[in-house]
């Protein structure tokens, strides 16, 4: 079983306890201007990969979710750098970047990211021909559908077990009033938290990305995931605190160990406390059970917050 952390920059890496994690995906796919973005800075990537290797972690590096044509030469340089560093895989959200990897005959395997829109096993098969060995299906894909993708697609399936669900990506930052080159708020605006609230809904905005307001939480349902054969689990930790990444990682490491042990599984009170403490707007199960994304299915961690 593999538990993956996501870390965008040295700032996010600092203070994060990576002990519970097996691997780390470096960089932010949302915006190249995120300060210290590992997916944009060769020197920072080198340092991080060296340090993580010493810790025995697998390392992946992500690529931009929405690169325009003018951005592709820069992406290519980063792919070259990632090859040099010997990272274990490249996370890919954009089909153009996937094709570039194949055209370059890159030895790096591709992990298809949350914005790659993998919905069917047939699409997973197409991506496999380009070098994808792992896919993270789109958030809307249910667990039952993901089982088919894993079985028929011939690829590993990564599941999101905890964190904000990536809901959308764009190339214009909503936190700025001027262009990103001239606005003094860039790149500091997205280091602070910003929430969008209206009616019954809360979303988290990171400028070029929209995330769920609630935290996806599969803690109660981990045995379902494990018995369905899933073994690659990600905690979305971008734009969160070091304490969030550390505490949630510890909870899921313990929970996965228990779920795999065959002993009776139950959500421990300390785990429940940790996930509730770190969720500002409550918990949800996304689309895994074929419901509205913001709903929580289950009993153990049911939240009573009306705003979801």
């Amino acid at each position, binding site marked *: 079983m593999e538990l993956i952390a996501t870390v965008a920059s040295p700032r996010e890496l600092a203070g994060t306890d990576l002990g519970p994690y097996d691997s780390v995906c470096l960089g932010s796919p949302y915006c190249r201007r995120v300060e210290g973005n590992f997916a944009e800075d060769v020197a920072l990537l080198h340092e991080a990969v060296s340090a993580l290797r010493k810790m025995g972690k697998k390392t992946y590096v992500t690529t931009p*979710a*929405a*690169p*325009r*044509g003018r*951005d*592709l030469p820069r992406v290519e340089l980063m792919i070259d750098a990632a090859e040099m560093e010997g990272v274990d895989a490249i996370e890919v959200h*954009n*089909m*153009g*970047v*996937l*094709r*570039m990897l194949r055209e370059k005959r890159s030895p790096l395997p591709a992990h298809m990211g949350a914005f790659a*829109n993998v*919905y*069917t*096993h*047939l*699409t*997973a*098969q*197409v*991506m496999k021909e*380009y070098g994808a060995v792992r896919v993270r299906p*789109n*958030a*809307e*894909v*249910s667990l039952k*559908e993901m089982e*088919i*993708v894993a079985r028929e697609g011939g690829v590993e399936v990564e599941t999101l077990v905890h964190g904000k*669900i990536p*809901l*959308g*990506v*764009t*190339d214009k930052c*909503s936190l700025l009033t001027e262009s990103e080159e001239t606005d003094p708020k860039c790149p500091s605006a997205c280091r*602070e*938290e*910003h*929430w*969008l*609230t*209206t*009616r*019954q*809904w809360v*979303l988290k905005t990171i400028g070029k990305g*929209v995330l*769920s307001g609630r935290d996806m939480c599969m803690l109660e349902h981990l045995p379902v995931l494990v018995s369905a054969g899933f073994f690659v689990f990600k905690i979305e930790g971008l734009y969160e605190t070091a304490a969030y990444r550390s505490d949630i990682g510890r909870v899921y490491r313990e929970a996965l160990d228990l779920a795999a042990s065959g002993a009776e599984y139950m959500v421990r009170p300390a785990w429940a406390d940790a996930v509730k403490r770190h969720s500002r707007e409550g918990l949800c199960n996304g*689309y895994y059970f*074929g*419901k*509205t*994304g*913001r*709903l929580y299915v289950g009993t153990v961690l049911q939240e009573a917050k009306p705003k979801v």
Partner: protein
Amino acid sequence: MAELLASGGTLEMVRAVLDNGADAVYVGARGWSRRRAQYEMGDDEILESARYARSLGKVLRVAFNTLPASQEIPLFLAKAEKFFSAGIRDFILTDAGAMAALSHRFPGVQIHASVGCTIINVEDALFYKEAGATQIVAECRMGLEEMRRLKEEAGVGLEVLVHATTCYTLLGRCTMSSYTRQEWRIDDEGKNHFLGSPNRGGLCYRVCLTEWDQVGEDGEPEARGVILPNTAYFLVDDIPALIDMDVDTIKIQGREYSVPLVSEMVRFYRELIDAYVKDRRAFRLERWKERMAGIICARDAERREKTAGLISESLTASPL
């Protein structure tokens, strides 16, 4: 010369857009396109639309451009085969795997990679070409320079939406609507309509267009009444450039609008394109702008009403 493609939300709209000068019309197979069922068509209506288009020497294109579930692929292929047997050769798809399956099953079919593919660079276009697409739809904010490169380097047809919306997020990469409300509803044929998911079922509640309050970490308001920009556009200035670069299709979206409005849009673009092609040097845009303003005004009124309805619908209790 560029083909003028227009929307066919109903049989009446199919006839109207073809009669008003569209070269081709697209319709959605019920449950399978990026609109809700009321703007899609049953098989018999699609076959009748195809016959009407053929009688005028024009093209009917069938949209299967949602992202289905794996277990729905056999349904898709069976429906596509029914249309293929009736002589339909033009399809619009989003799922790369479905494209590959369709092009293997029926070599020679025309497959357009939908706007839902979010094709934003030349490499994207080449990926979908290799998956089986014969033509790709440019992402709505793609600049003319990138389109020119794509046209020169990709060797695949280029389609540009001239009446559509630029979502706040990149269209095809957004699940905000289904986060607020999603309902699985399976029809008689076994197709899930994924109500509330624009990518999967076509119905988008447009929650980006409601008024949001932005608050910071401490809960203090930073801005009130924030509207995440999702703008309907009506492209006129770029039409000469699009024709000059030899784009293959100029597309008017609009299945959810009224038949008179869509007919007016089709007439407008037909006459504009013809006037430009007839005498490119003498062509002046100015005289078209006033007529355009009238169409935009009518379009915005219809859109506002629709958006208000969708947002209020999204607040109805979702099934647990």
